[in-house]
């Protein structure tokens, strides 16, 4: 758990509704994320958690509601705006670039920090090379932090699942995000891997002050590392608060146990 010095809001979603055809993925969901906190989003499968992240990211555009990020309010986010605004994320089903190595994948995370155009790239010697080396240095810090030095040059397609998830986290971290969205970062991991991943997430939050929004199914992890929790079920918010408050909430217990609501 972390103590944050400021309670200011970094991101606020208000009355977000999202549907695909007839399917209501999200209905009237509102919550906020405070700067520097670890905010978990939990709920049974299909509750709309990933959709919520996609809305924050700008990949899905909600039919109703608004998103306020860093003080600016919008009806929808554009992916590029999100990226430039310091929002980075990992994906439920790992969206790494399979044809590239670990190093190259993480380097793509630096894309928004690099700007030398085609001409300098073609020449290589000069500004492009300097920029490349500067960013390489930062990426190497990330690689050290995540302890993945040995797989630097390995094509990611060949890595085991757990390491791929770590590389994906690396790519997100390389962007020096203000807000980090993690979609089930521990899915499919064993205990040891989960402990490592929890450690990385906590260190990112404590050392760099990165705000984190986290979707996770493992209640133990959620209880341990979250500051606050939001619970979604069938696209609606059914509870929020500190981990203890949420755990004791009857609605939440019913949702997970499958008691039907009228």
């Amino acid at each position, binding site marked *: 758990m972390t103590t944050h010095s400021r309670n200011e809001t970094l991101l606020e979603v208000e009355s977000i509704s999202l549907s695909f055809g007839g399917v209501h993925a999200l209905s009237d969901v509102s919550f906020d994320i405070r700067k520097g906190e670890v905010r978990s989003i939990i709920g049974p499968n299909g509750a709309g958690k990933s959709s919520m992240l996609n809305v924050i990211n700008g990949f899905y555009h909600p039919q109703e509601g608004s998103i306020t990020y860093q003080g600016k309010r919008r009806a929808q986010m554009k992916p590029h705006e999100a990226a430039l605004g310091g929002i980075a994320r990992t994906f439920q089903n790992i969206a*790494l670039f399979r044809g590239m190595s670990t190093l190259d994948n993480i380097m793509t995370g630096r894309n928004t920090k690099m700007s030398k155009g085609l001409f300098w790239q073609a020449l290589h010697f000069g500004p492009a*090379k300097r920029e490349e080396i500067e960013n390489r240095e930062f990426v190497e810090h990330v690689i050290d932090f995540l302890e993945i030095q040995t797989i630097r040059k390995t094509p990611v397609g060949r890595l085991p699942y757990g390491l791929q998830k770590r590389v994906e986290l690396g790519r997100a971290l390389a962007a020096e995000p203000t807000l980090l969205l993690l979609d089930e970062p521990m899915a499919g991991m064993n205990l040891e891997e989960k402990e490592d991943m929890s450690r990385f997430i906590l260190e990112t939050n404590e050392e760099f002050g990165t705000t984190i929004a986290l979707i996770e199914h493992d209640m133990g992890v959620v209880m341990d590392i979250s500051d606050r929790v939001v619970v979604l079920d069938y696209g609606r918010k059914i509870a929020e608060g500190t981990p203890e408050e949420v755990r004791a909430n009857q609605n939440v217990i019913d949702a997970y146990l499958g008691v039907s609501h009228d």
Partner: protein
Amino acid sequence: MFYRENGQFKSSYSSDQAIFPIAQDRAFVIGILLVAFCGVPFFINEYWANAILIPLLVYALAGLGLNILTGYCGQVSLGTGAFMAVGAYASFKLVGFFPEVNYLILIFVSGLVTAAVGVVFGLPSLRIKGFYLAVATLAAQFFLIWLFNKVGWFYDHSPTGMITVRPIDFFGVRVTGPEATPAAKYLFTLTIIATLTLTAKNIVRGRVGRSWMAIRDMDIAAELIGIKPLQAKLSAFAVSSFYIGVAGALYFGVYLGSVEPLEAFDINQSFYVLFIIIIGGLGSILGAFLGAAFIVLLPILMKNLMVGGFGVASGTAGHVEILLLGALIIFFLIVEPHGLARLWQIAKEKLRLWPFPH
């Protein structure tokens, strides 16, 4: 064990990022370049230049261009033939308008013209993907060839519809037309290809190349981490078309000397270049060269073997060639979809331990 990379430690990111980080590779490539630049011109003759080396280099360049677009950026294109035509006709008209200007500059400008055309025909890629994009490039292919055939201005209203290259001197040395020596044509072509290969390698290992590969591998994720699809795709089209345009200009000016659009730049040409990068290896600079060598040498081998060796009629040899080409494509796609370049890599890996295999 002579090919071990053990003991070769990199002490800076700069050396780690070098094109040939392993010393043996560096030596090998320098060796080849020395032979190519300093050795070959002394031994080259008409046949070797015109039938083997120059087409190999020109096709390798076209393959490089297409590989940038299709192999690195994942945008399928069947319009290579037409873009080569743009480069060829651009160089033809430019030489006509500015006969005093250095040929190299005019070729460069032809490349730029082709890049512009490529960007225009690449715009649909922002909405269309995969096969559908291939169809859009077919539109470019058929339309442009029709254009070059119909509009007399392109071929200076010559009654045959063909364009023939003017004799051009490059710093006093004749490089086009029947008077040019094989060595001159070869060196001119080689210099251009060598420079452009280096440039391609530089672009591909840097930020732009990575953004291309990101779009290829997972364009949605790429967009979400801040890579702009517009910039990435159009830059791929632009660079790719530039290379293909230059290849077309050389194909016309130095290699063939005169062309007629329906034959030299038709859809079959697009397929040939596509085959080059499939066989050579998608997403590999080396692959373009290996594939081009394959495509250029195969018919020659066939002709020599069948016509010379077995006395088969040349028409039949042509049919067998087509059959063999198709069969080899299928073979490569089944056995090694990453082409000759991957096979080369595997061979090198085996060499690491030779003569002590694991």
